[in-house]
């Protein structure tokens, strides 16, 4: 059944309905009480929507053949997740490096820890 759900979620009928309604879901009747099946469907509808957008940017390792094959799609999603995590980590590291580059402090020097006590303001 999960295979069928994914097939429907990537189907142009539901993708077009989703995009055509400004990314809302008028075709689902019981929105207040979503069931497990609907939850899975929505998860994959959004996933495939994102993947179709990525496909249009000509992203590496993503082709129509990948999207038509569940195992290859899972593999691509995992690859994209890892790539995204690595890029985020690199960005964080380079941001930190950038902050400290302009003011290199020798933490072994005693001056690094010396500071003057501020005298209380006389009123």
């Amino acid at each position: 059944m999960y295979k069928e759900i994914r097939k429907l979620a990537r189907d142009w009928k539901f993708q077009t309905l989703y995009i055509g309604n400004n990314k809302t879901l008028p075709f689902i009747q019981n929105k207040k009480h979503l069931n497990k099946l609907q939850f899975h469907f929505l998860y994959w509808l959004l996933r495939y929507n994102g993947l179709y957008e990525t496909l249009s940017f000509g992203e590496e390792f993503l082709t129509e053949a990948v999207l038509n094959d569940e195992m290859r799609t899972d593999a691509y999603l995992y690859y994209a997740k890892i790539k995204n995590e690595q890029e985020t980590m690199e960005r964080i590291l380079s941001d930190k490096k950038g902050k400290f580059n302009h003011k290199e402090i020798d933490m072994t020097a005693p001056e690094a820890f010396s500071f003057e006590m501020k005298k209380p303001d006389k009123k």
Partner: protein
Amino acid sequence: MEEKMTQLMGELFGEEELSIEEAIVDGIFTISIGENNYRIRTPNFSEKRLAEKERKKYTVELIGTKGYEFEDVLIKSLKKKKIDIKKMESEFEKLQEEIHIKWLSLAKMTKREESQEDKKAIEDRKIEISQLLAKQMQISIDKYKYMQYSIESEAEQRYILFLIILCTDIKKKNGNYIRLYKDLDSFDHGDEELNNRLVYYASHLFFKSRDLKDV
């Protein structure tokens, strides 16, 4: 692991009569057996609350009943009998790590223009992944076999059964639907084929407490 069990159930029951589109759009499954038409629908908030109350009541009933243990106690008892659930879980995780490695390699095999050789290599990698998934499926089945009689699992089954009773309707001649089962006893005496299907469809409609933890 739960998802893999459900997938296996689907393969066993066959899904040719299912209308998944209907289940997605309307939140119901319709079932026809002979001349009778039934439906199982998504529970509302008050129905879920009633079922939750039943789960708690049943959990209290099971505490102290001979043969029923909580999961953590059952795991310890099974280990004494050389059935190691924790080891099964770690094997499952190890397989998942192997799958992740194979997924990365499969993803990177994609080319804009794939030759016959590329396609063959992709298919081979997919077979390797399928074999790992099959091993995971076997672990899920083994684990389920041992853990299905824990108090948590029994209470969960009662919760699902209670929702089935509340949410199963039969179609009358005038086209209206009315509730089919009054209570657990009427369910137990109901049509076996229908009940088997209801249990299967319920696994797709109703969230289990474990599913909600994942969410």
